[in-house]
């Protein structure tokens, strides 16, 4: 369990490097303020998550784990179900859009739809984890 913070830190640094590289590639004159804000935001975000984990560990008096085999089974079942809902829901949405005469979908709208989908899955995972 001790190695997790190192893995998370490496993942954050790698993701930030890839993000900055792609950002520079797509927008060559990227303002320094935006880059700094991105880096500070990432560091603060990870700090808040680690801080919350440490705070919860200190507050908890017993040695009972938060996650066990039943939690993983529940999460797996939730992902299996959400995959079907996302696939059939998306298909239904495309059919409805086609029926009402929409012929093209903007990449922006698509990215917002995917973002909402991911957020719902993340929220659902947390709800299932606590059950």
């Amino acid at each position, binding site marked *: 369990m001790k190695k997790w913070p190192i893995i998370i830190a490496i993942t954050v640094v790698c993701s930030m490097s890839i993000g900055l590289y792609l950002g520079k590639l797509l927008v060559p004159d990227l303002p320094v303020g935006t880059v700094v804000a991105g880096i500070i935001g990432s560091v603060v975000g990870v700090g808040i998550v680690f801080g919350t984990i440490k705070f919860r560990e200190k507050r908890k008096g017993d040695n009972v784990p*938060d996650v066990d*085999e*039943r939690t993983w089974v529940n999460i797996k079942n939730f992902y299996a179900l959400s995959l079907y809902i996302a696939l059939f829901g998306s298909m239904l949405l495309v059919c409805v859009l086609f029926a009402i005469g929409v012929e093209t979908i903007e990449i922006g709208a698509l990215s917002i739809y995917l973002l909402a989908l991911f957020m719902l899955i993340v929220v659902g995972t947390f709800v299932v984890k606590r059950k």
Partner: protein
Amino acid sequence: MKVRNRIKEIRLAKGISQIEMAEALQITRQTINAVENHKYNPSLELALKLIKYFNVTLDEIFTLEEE
């Protein structure tokens, strides 16, 4: 066929609380509740841990209910 268990009965007979059991077996209290109320069948690993923890045989804890 349903798997029935006598975990709650054995636990109470030995005077063990759910928290103590959860700490010893490294499972959540919700899982103990689910297993005791026959809503979740434990994995083979957890079943073997339970046998060792309560120091009983398999058929003393788990039985297969004929339909």
